[in-house]
């Protein structure tokens, strides 16, 4: 069963085509890199998958369904910018997530928070920026979802935090679930990816397994990306 499918998916903002006839499928058990320069349509695609935007043409299906209440039960979404209510404590947030999502694994989240030494009694607002981002990631990854949509999880964080984020993704890996990670920092993520999708000006110009690309072209995905997107 395909977990995410786009058929001729198009999204326009006025005259601008942010996505232009995208056809992609994502199977269960894959960690997929959604790669492209700024403005290539990565965030638009992820927002469409979450039902935050509506397609201008074509369709997007999650587990065979159009985005809606049923798909939100199985999709765990990390937005580009943190969106947790910052006046809450981490402890209150745990309860909030538990109430909202049946698949929320509270003890896994508590475990991850305590390993980072985060004081669950402190207001999110009083945490460092790095810890605020980690708290949000922990909430997202502690759901036992079928599809994780992570929009730029490693943009703007230091290398140690980047390793933490990637390790959190690997350690929560579940063969029944898939994860889509959008980023332009390819050399950092390519070793955790099964597949990559290159977006350019709203079109999916390449979709292939990472090791197949490396085997066929004798180059890293990072090098291939630099060639495809040479300015």
């Amino acid at each position, binding site marked *: 069963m395909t977990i995410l499918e786009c058929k001729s998916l198009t999204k326009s903002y006025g005259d601008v085509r942010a996505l232009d006839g995208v056809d992609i499928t994502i199977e269960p058990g894959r960690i997929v890199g959604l790669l492209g320069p700024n403005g290539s349509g990565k965030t638009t695609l992820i927002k469409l998958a979450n039902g935050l935007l509506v397609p201008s043409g074509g369709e997007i299906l999650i587990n065979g369904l159009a985005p809606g209440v049923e798909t939100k039960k199985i999709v765990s979404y990390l937005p580009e910018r943190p969106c947790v209510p910052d006046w809450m404590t981490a402890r209150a947030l745990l309860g909030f997530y538990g109430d909202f999502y049946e698949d929320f694994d509270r003890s896994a989240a508590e475990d991850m928070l305590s390993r980072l030494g985060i004081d669950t009694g402190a207001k999110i607002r009083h945490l460092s920026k790095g810890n605020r981002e980690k708290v949000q990631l922990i909430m997202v990854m502690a759901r036992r979802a079928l599809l994780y949509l992570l929009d730029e999880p490693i943009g703007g964080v230091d290398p140690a935090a980047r390793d933490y984020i990637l390790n959190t993704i*690997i350690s929560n890996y579940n063969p029944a679930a898939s994860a889509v990670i959008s980023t332009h920092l390819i050399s950092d993520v390519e070793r955790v990816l099964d597949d990559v999708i290159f977006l350019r000006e709203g079109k999916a110009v390449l979709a292939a397994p990472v090791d197949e690309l*490396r085997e066929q072209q004798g180059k890293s995905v990072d090098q291939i990306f630099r060639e495809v997107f040479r300015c």
Partner: protein
Amino acid sequence: MEWRFEGGAPIYAQIVGTVKLAIASGELPPGERLPGVRELALEAGVNPNTMQRALTELEREGLVYSQRTAGRFVTDSAEAVEAARRELADGTVKTFLTAMRRLGFEREEILNLLEREENHDDSGM
């Protein structure tokens, strides 16, 4: 094991190389139990599917074997370890010779240099 990934070779193939070196050098002794796929994937910072593929390849090459319930182990076969050692040595020599020929060295000179370097090593001990 030290995990480093570079260049354009497939990542699973680079993992196979790293584990093979650890087995051939004795860092992973015969019969040693390997950590689980997820643990190894975390340690190497790679995708669990990629780690699984590398382990399957190592099994196919006879360097590790799995026991249904107990996990995965380094081969007990001294011949298999020796074969891996030879294979890695061949590769290292080939790389060395390619680099030396590129620098314009002929067989005699290369042998002389090797001998001199070896003496250096001895006196340096």
